[in-house]
Structure formats: structure tokens, C-alpha cells
């Protein structure tokens, strides 16, 4: 098998905030009945975290689980363990109407670090990014420019952005442009 690489192979940009390609990240799409206890247990076993609430993301040392839609979760796990985790989910949820797919290599992920991350994201997205509306522990699916993305904050100085890999470079360039030094409106920071 060929060697797996991330969309921008660890590219880093230092502007008003630091933008990094976070490297290989295991991602699993899990669709099913989110109110089911068996599914919650399987999510806990796979990621080590509890079922996220509507619009939320729960992160832990082992992984994270994010709410994508009323019947879909995004599970973040180790890239190397993604296939094995899918197999475990399939086994644990055998008999239920579910779908678990390893989508790790279909996605790109970036991290934004610095005080102005809310301002950088707000340049491309119509989402309300004020600290009252968008809190730590929530994941917002929205657009950045014209591209679908999802982002969440781990702290006020640390955000993650997920998008399709095919547009990874475009999103990275867009974020780079938004994070040019001296261009932050400092509306949120």
C-alpha cells in the first residue's frame, strides 16, 4: 500500500494566527439512530467520549465525537486505528440500521492557533462567531467562502477546521489570506 499523507503534508503558515495542516487524522462517519444506547456505548468504546449533544463535540485523549446531523456523527480517532475502529463499530452494532465508513483520506484538517481565530474564521463564514453564540465544545457546520467546512474551538486560542480533501489547498489558501498580518479587524478578540 502507498504511504498515506495529509492534504498539505504538514504545511504551516504564520500570520495573525498560525495555521497548520494537522497531518494524518482518522475520521469515521457514523450514521444511525443517535438516541440508541447501543450506539452511544459503541461511540464511547471507539473514541472514549460520551455521545455529543446536538451541535456539540466531545473530545478526549483517545479521540472525539462530533454531532453532524440528527442521524450522523463524525468520530475522530488515530489515523492508523481508523479501519480497526470501523470494524469494531460494525461488530458492536451488528443488527442495527447503521453505517460506519472510514473517511480519513477524504478530508483535510487544519488547526488555527492565536488570539484572533474568531476573526479569521468570520472573514469566510456567515456563522455568528461571537463568544455568546459559538462556544467551546460546539461544532459549527457552515461554509468558508463557498466551501463546506466544519469548525470548533478547543480553547479561545485554538480552533480546528475540517473540510473535504479535494478543496483542502483552497481552504488553506483562503485561511492564509484571511490571516495576513495586520489585517485582523479585532472584532472578536
Amino acid at each position, binding site marked *: 500500500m502507498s504511504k498515506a499523507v495529509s492534504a498539505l503534508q504538514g504545511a504551516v503558515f504564520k500570520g495573525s494566527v498560525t495555521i497548520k495542516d494537522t497531518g494524518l487524522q482518522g475520521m469515521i462517519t457514523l450514521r444511525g439512530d443517535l438516541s440508541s444506547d447501543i450506539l452511544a456505548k459503541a461511540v464511547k468504546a471507539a473514541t472514549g467520549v460520551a455521545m455529543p449533544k*446536538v*451541535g456539540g463535540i466531545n473530545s478526549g485523549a483517545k479521540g472525539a465525537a462530533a*454531532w*453532524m*446531523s*440528527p442521524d*450522523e456523527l463524525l468520530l475522530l480517532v488515530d489515523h492508523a486505528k481508523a479501519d480497526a475502529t470501523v470494524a469494531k463499530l460494525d461488530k458492536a452494532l451488528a443488527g442495527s440500521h447503521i453505517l460506519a465508513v472510514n473517511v480519513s483520506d477524504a478530508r483535510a484538517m487544519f488547526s488555527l492557533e492565536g488570539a484572533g481565530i474568531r476573526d479569521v474564521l468570520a472573514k469566510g463564514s*456567515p*456563522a*455568528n462567531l461571537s463568544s455568546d*453564540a459559538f462556544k467551546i465544545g460546539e461544532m*459549527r*457546520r*457552515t*461554509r468558508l467562502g463557498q466551501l*463546506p467546512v466544519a469548525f470548533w474551538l478547543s480553547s479561545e486560542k485554538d480552533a480546528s477546521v475540517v473540510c473535504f480533501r479535494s478543496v483542502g489547498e483552497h481552504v488553506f489558501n483562503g485561511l492564509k489570506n484571511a490571516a495576513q498580518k495586520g489585517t485582523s479587524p479585532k472584532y472578536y478578540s
Partner: protein
Amino acid sequence: MLLLTCPYCGVEADETELTPGGEAHITRFGADSSDNDFETYLFMRKNPKGVHFERWRHAYGCGKWFHAARCTMTLEVFGTYKAQTFEPPKALINKIKKKRPNWEGFVK
């Protein structure tokens, strides 16, 4: 700018994050229906000046279809509700009636 709250994810979504789906609560007539019914289903729309029920899809978010009630004249949004229904919820209809006493009510 139109802001609609998605009833599935609770996100207050901007118009540009949504896809419009036209008038809501249209009765579907299939291939075995009369020409008149089929024509009504395909082409006839209310296009009111005032209260209107619409379908929207949270395209850049959770991807679900939902319904919204708004005024086509003032762009006031009365409310949004889930699409798993044949008619608007009673509470929403009462709310609109209070705001628009002359409104004839929901007609399918």
C-alpha cells in the same frame, strides 16, 4: 438578510447557508392522476403577499429539509418547524394569527 433557525440543529443559519425549496405542503400527484391535478401539482403556486410557508434545506449544515413560515412582504420570520408533517404546527398558526389578524389561515 434572511436568518432562519434550523429546527434540527438549532443553528441560526444565514440565507447563504440554505437552499430554498419553494412552497411547502404541496400535495403530490403522480403519474396516474388527472391532467388537472398533475398540472396543479407541477405548476400552480400560491405566491401570496403576506404569510407564506416554505421549504428550506440546511445545505451547508446538517443537510436536512425543514419548513419556515414568513411574510413575503416584510420578510418577518414567524417560525421554522421540522418537515415530518403535513401542515404547520397549531402553535405557529396561532402565533401568526395574533400578528396578522386578517390572515385567512393555512389553506392547503
